[in-house]
C-alpha cells in the first residue's frame, strides 16, 4: 500500500502543490489526471525519490520512505520518453536492475526471457535500442521496470505520442500485463478516456489537495 500524507513541494519559494494526500491499495491501479503544470510528474518523481518534498511523508506498506534515496526504494518508473540506456542492448537494458543487485547470470537470463515473452518482444533480445519503434521502446521500458518486481510502478504519461491504433493496443496489453502480475500502479495521464479505460480509480490531482 502506498500512502502519501500531506505532501507539499515548494520550488524557489513558489508552491507547486501543498498538503496533497493519496492512498493506493495493494494491487490497485490508480490514474491521476490534471492540467499541464499542476505537478503530476513532480508527484511521481517525489514518490520515486528523484525529487525531495518540502513537507509531509510517503510510506510504502507502513514503512516511511520519505528520506530514502531513490535506489533503495524499489519503486519502478516508466518515463514519458522511455529513457532506455542507449549503450546497452534490449536484453541488457531489461537485465540492468538484476545486474545491479548481482543476481546470478542464469537467473537473470531466465527472468529477462520471461519478461520479454510477456511483452511479446522475445525476438528483440540482442537488438540495440537505438532503432526501436515507439511501441517496442515503450514495451521494453515497461519490461525493464517490471523485472525488478517493484512495490509500486509509476507510469508517467506512458502512451503519449503513439498513434491511435498503437495507443489502443498498448493500453490493452499493458492493462492485462499489470493486472496479471498484480502490480500496484499510479498512472499519470492528461487523457481522461485513457485513464478510465485503464484504472480502477481515476483521480484529479486538484481533488487531492486539502
Amino acid at each position, binding site marked *: 500500500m502506498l500512502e502519501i500524507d500531506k505532501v507539499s513541494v515548494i520550488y524557489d519559494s513558489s508552491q507547486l502543490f501543498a498538503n496533497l494526500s493519496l492512498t493506493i491499495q495493494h494491487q490497485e491501479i490508480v490514474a491521476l489526471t490534471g492540467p499541464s503544470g499542476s505537478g503530476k510528474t513532480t508527484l511521481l*518523481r517525489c514518490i*520515486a*525519490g*528523484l525529487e525531495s518534498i518540502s513537507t509531509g511523508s510517503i510510506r510504502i506498506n507502513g514503512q516511511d520512505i520519505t528520506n530514502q*534515496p*531513490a*535506489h*533503495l*526504494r*524499489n*519503486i*519502478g*518508473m516508466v*518515463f514519458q*520518453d522511455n*529513457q532506455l*540506456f*542507449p*549503450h546497452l542492448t534490449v536484453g541488457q537494458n531489461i537485465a*540492468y*536492475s538484476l*545486474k*545491479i*543487485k548481482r543476481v546470478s547470470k542464469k537467473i537473470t537470463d531466465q527472468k529477462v526471457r520471461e519478461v520479454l515473452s510477456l511483452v511479446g518482444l522475445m525476438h528483440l533480445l540482442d537488438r540495440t535500442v*537505438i532503432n526501436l519503434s515507439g511501441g517496442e521502446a515503450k514495451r521494453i521500458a515497461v519490461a*525493464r*521496470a517490471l523485472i*525488478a518486481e517493484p512495490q509500486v510502478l509509476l507510469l508517467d504519461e506512458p502512451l503519449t505520442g503513439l498513434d491511435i491504433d498503437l495507443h489502443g493496443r498498448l493500453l490493452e496489453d499493458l492493462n492485462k500485463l499489470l493486472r496479471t502480475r498484480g502490480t500496484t500502479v499510479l498512472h499519470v495521464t492528461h487523457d481522461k478516456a485513457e485513464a478510465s479505460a485503464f484504472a480502477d480509480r481515476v483521480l484529479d490531482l486538484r481533488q487531492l489537495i486539502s
Partner: protein
Amino acid sequence: MATIYHRSRAVNWLAIAPIFFIFAFIVAPVLNIFVSSLQFESLNLLRTEAIRNVVWFTTWQSLVSTALALTVALPLAFVTANFKFKAQRLTTSLISMPFILPSIVVGVAFLQILPNNFHRTAFALILAHVYFNFGFASRLISARWLQIHPHLDDAARTLGASPLKLFTTLTLPLLSKAIANAALIVFTLCFTSYGVVRVLGGPSRSTLETEIYFRAMQLGDVSGAMLLSALQVVIIALLFVVTTKASSKKFEQSTRPTITRQIPLQTGRQKIVITTIISSATAFAIVPVLAIAFKSINTDSRFTTSAWRTVFTNPEITQSIAKTFTYSVIAMGLATLLGLLCACSVAYNNKFHFISGLTTLPIVISAVSIGLGIIITFDTQPFDWRGAQLMLPLAHTLVALPLVMRIISPVLQAIPDSLRQASSVLGASPRQTWLNIDFKIIRRAAISAAAISATVSIGEFGASSFLARRGAETLPVMISRLLSRPGDSLQSQAFALATLLVMFSLAMIFVVDSFAKDKFIRDSHA
C-alpha cells in the same frame, strides 16, 4: 547529407583551393620527408641509445601527463556538467585559458613559478603539460556529459543504481568515447610538445620534437631530423588509427537533451566540495599567468617598468611585434577562408568528405615537422621560397586550419536543409540562399574561428623556429632568444613579451566565448 547545393557546380570549385593548399603545403612536404629519410644509413640513427632514450622519454612523459591531465579534468567536467554556480562562465573561461596560451608562454610561466632545482626536470615538463591540457580535456568531456539526458540517470536510480553504480554502469560507458578522444588529443599534444620542452627541458630533457629541431638547426643533420620526423608521424598516425577503431563501436548520442543536467548547489556539502574544486582549478589556471606578469615588472629583485619600456622602444622588438601581428592577420584571413571552404565542401557534397580527413593532417603532423617539411621542399628552383616572408603565415594557416574547420563545420552541418528549401521556394537563388541562410547562421562561428586562428598564429613556435629569419622573428622566437641570453633585464623583457601574448590570448578567449555558440543553434534547442 544531401542539400540544395548538392548539384551546384560552384561547390566543386569551392573544394579546389583547400585541397590544393593542403596537398602543396602538407602532403607534398611530408611525402618529401618520408622519401628523403628512408635511406639505409640514416636508419642507423634509430639504433643509437641516445635516440632510443629520447623516444622512451617522449612516450612516458606523454603517458603520465595525459593520465594526470585526465585525472584533474574528470572531476572538473563533473562539476561543470552537473551544477550551476556563480560566475560559471567566467570560471569556465579562466580554466580553459591555459589551452589557448602559446606553448612557450606556458614554459616561461613554469620557469618562473618553479624553484630552480625543478628546472630541466621531467616533473616540470609534466606539470606544464597538465596545466596546458586539463581545461581543454575537461571542456571536451563536460560537453559530452551535458548531452546525457538527466532522465537516464533517474531511470538507473529507480532501477536500484547507487551513485557509484550509476557512474560505473551508465555515465562512464556513455563518456568513454569522449574520454578516449580527449586522451588521444592530450597525448598527441604532449608527444609533439615543443615550446614547453624547449624552455623547461633544455638540452638534458629532449623529446622527439626538440630533437628534430636540434638535429636540423644545431647539428645540421637534416636527414636525421627527417627520419625522426617520419618516425613521429608514423607513431601518431598509428595511435589515431588504433584509438579511432577502438572507439568507433562505442555509442555516441548526438542529440541534445531538452532539459539541462545542471542543477543549482543545494546542500552545504555540495557547496564546499564544488567551491573547492572550482577555486583550486581556477587558481591553478591563473597563478602561472600572474607569475609571468609579476616577473615582467621585476628586474634584479626590484619593481620597474624598464622591461616594458624596452619592449616598446627597442626597434628589434617592436619590429618583431609588428611582424607577428601582420603574420597573424594574414594567417587569420587565410585559415578562416580555407576552413570555410573546407566546411562548405564537406557539408554540401558527400564526395568531399575526404577533406575532413585531410584537415586532420596538421594535428597528426607536428608543427616542427610542418616547418621542416616546408623548408626542405621549397628550397629548390622554381620553388625556392625558403626566405619568402609568406611562408610563415602559410605554416601558421596550416596549424590553425583543423581548429577552424572543427568550429565551423558542426554549425554548418546542423543547419536543416528545410530552411534552404523554404528560402528557395520563396524565390531566392542558391547564392542568395547561401548569403541569407547559411552565412548568417555560421558567421558567429566564423568570427570565433578567426579569433582562434589569430591566437594560434601569434603563439606558434614550432614551425616558426624553422622558418623565422633573423630580423623577422615572431614573438615566441624572440622570447626564446631573449631567455637563452644571460641577464635579468633580458629575462624580464621575455616575460613582458609573454605577458603581451597572454593579454592577446585572453582577449581572443573573450571573443571566442562570446561568439562560439551560434545564436541559431542556441535558440533551436531552447
